[in-house]
């Protein structure tokens, strides 16, 4: 039986935890909202990039972190979204807002088709098969010159107005990226706490037992793959919307690899990890590449060090550390 004072202290600590749980996200959102106003266009541009790639990293995290599906072809859906938006706009003159929706839809359909074939295998075969499909899209983007512009890519997106706001202005694109990012983050947060999210986690933890509990595991894997592909498509269309341009790099395996690094670096299977990973990776890339062409070498060394030092990723390890500290007090 704890003494009364201990109970009071316990309640106070709980309230303080609750307070932090509300305050920390609020502070971050407010900081992100005022950032471009105080930090200028250059920093705003980098953060825009981080927000967009965070969406892609969060979507991959749904597969590898929550469902245990190690995909190495996630760029496929990013590029499907990006190309759909740009091509529909530049060739058919379709409004870019509708193009955004179309991009997400095409990526989703692509994820159904590719996912249906890939989930038939698992482990290394799954990894290689997803890679093969995304490289197939890459070769289409390079070879179908008449439509995709080959390795030069296509540009010239006509950005629409949003209630009189010119979406070509960097400040407005920043807020657009922020909104899409926050919506995606919120959707993932709801998803992983829901029964469906728990079903995905169950498959990651113990596929055989999930089958014995009556779950049609293959269908759930496909569903996770499609949801991840859909969100990657959203990231891709947002990326194309911001840059007004897309090239085959968006489908290249190196992008799939970069996103994988972001997720592992930040901490897979955590909500915030992929965002931290995307931020750290892109900041390192931006800062180091202004000093040396061999930035990959340095980022690689940092990546190796992080994986060795923080086994659950930067965010994962830090939050574990904090949790242990809290419980000890």
């Amino acid at each position, binding site marked *: 039986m704890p003494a009364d004072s201990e109970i009071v202290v316990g309640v106070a600590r709980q309230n303080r935890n609750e307070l932090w749980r509300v305050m920390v996200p609020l502070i971050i959102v407010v900081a992100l909202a005022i950032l471009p106003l105080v930090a200028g266009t250059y920093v705003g541009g980098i953060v825009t990039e981080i927000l967009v790639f965070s969406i892609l990293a969060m979507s991959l995290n749904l597969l590898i972190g929550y469902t245990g599906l190690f995909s190495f072809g996630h760029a496929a859906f990013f590029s499907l979204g990006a190309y759909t938006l740009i091509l529909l706009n530049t060739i058919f003159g379709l409004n870019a807002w509708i193009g955004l929706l179309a991009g997400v839809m095409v990526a989703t359909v692509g994820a159904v088709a590719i996912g249906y074939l890939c989930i038939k295998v698992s482990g290394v075969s799954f990894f290689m098969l997803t890679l093969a499909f995304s490289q197939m899209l890459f070769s289409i983007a390079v070879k179908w010159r008449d439509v995709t512009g080959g390795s030069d890519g296509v540009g010239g997106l006509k950005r629409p107005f949003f209630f009189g706001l010119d979406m070509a202005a960097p400040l407005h694109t920043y807020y657009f990226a922020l909104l899409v990012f926050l919506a995606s983050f919120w959707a993932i947060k709801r998803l992983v706490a829901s*029964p469906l999210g*728990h079903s995905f986690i169950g498959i990651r933890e113990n596929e*055989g037992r999930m*089958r*014995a509990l009556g*779950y*049609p595991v293959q269908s759930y894997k496909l569903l996770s793959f499609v949801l991840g592909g859909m969100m990657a498509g959203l990231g891709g269309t947002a990326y194309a919307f911001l840059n007004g341009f897309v090239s085959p790099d968006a489908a290249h395996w190196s992008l799939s690899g970069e996103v994988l690094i972001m997720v592992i670096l930040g901490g897979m299977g955590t909500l915030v990890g992929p965002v931290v990973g995307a931020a750290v990776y892109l900041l390192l890339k931006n800062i180091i590449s202004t000093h040396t062409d061999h930035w990959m070498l340095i980022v690689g060394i940092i990546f190796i060090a992080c994986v060795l030092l923080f086994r659950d990723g930067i965010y994962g390890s830090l939050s574990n550390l904090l949790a242990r500290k809290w419980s000890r007090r």
Partner: protein
Amino acid sequence: MESPLSILRTENLTKMFGSLIVTNNLNLSIEAEARHAIIGPNGAGKTSLLHQIAGQLRPTSGKIFLKEQEITGFAAERVCRMGLARTFQKNSLFLNLSVVENVRLAVQQKRGNPLNPFTPAENIAKTNERAREVLDQVHLGADIGRLVRELSYGEQRQLEIALALASDPEILLLDEPTSGMSPTETQRMVQLIQELPRQLTIIMIEHDMDVVFSVANRITVLHYGQMLATGSHEEITRNPAVREVYLGVA
């Protein structure tokens, strides 16, 4: 030969791994509401038989009927949804989740909506209440918030049963529920099994004869994949063939 009450039966069931026969032309019939133990020396094909019934392993030939419907070669998830749940000889749990989260996964599949992508699972009263009910049934009601990897081995064995019970089965397959347990833990497990509802059909593989005799009312002895004998406790202990190969008495 089959009694009309048979809830599960196999017809000439055979499973071969290459030239090794693990289930040999087996005709097994389990009555509804029975407490049926399957015993036999190591390598008699007991677990392989369970795997075939529950859908983890596809038989080479022969048929399996559940409630007079053929289920031969059905996938595990389908067999489970038809009312047959099982436990595993080697714990097969969700180690990084909490106790209640483990059971909730089973409950939401049967009684909830596992496709709900939006409502926080811990706020859904119906599945949480049912999960608590099942955990009380296996004496883990006080441990709902603990991580499964932090439970003792015996508690994990209890959770094995909770996961199976949470699927609301009519037939429960227990694969060596007391394997690796201390005498105290074994005693607790026997009590737990005895407390299970009478209308639940239980098929149990077990090595500990004390457990078998205190739980089962019918016993089948397997030997090299073949049925040596089926009958009551009395009939089995008196059967000369069983005494020879299993109890080791000539």
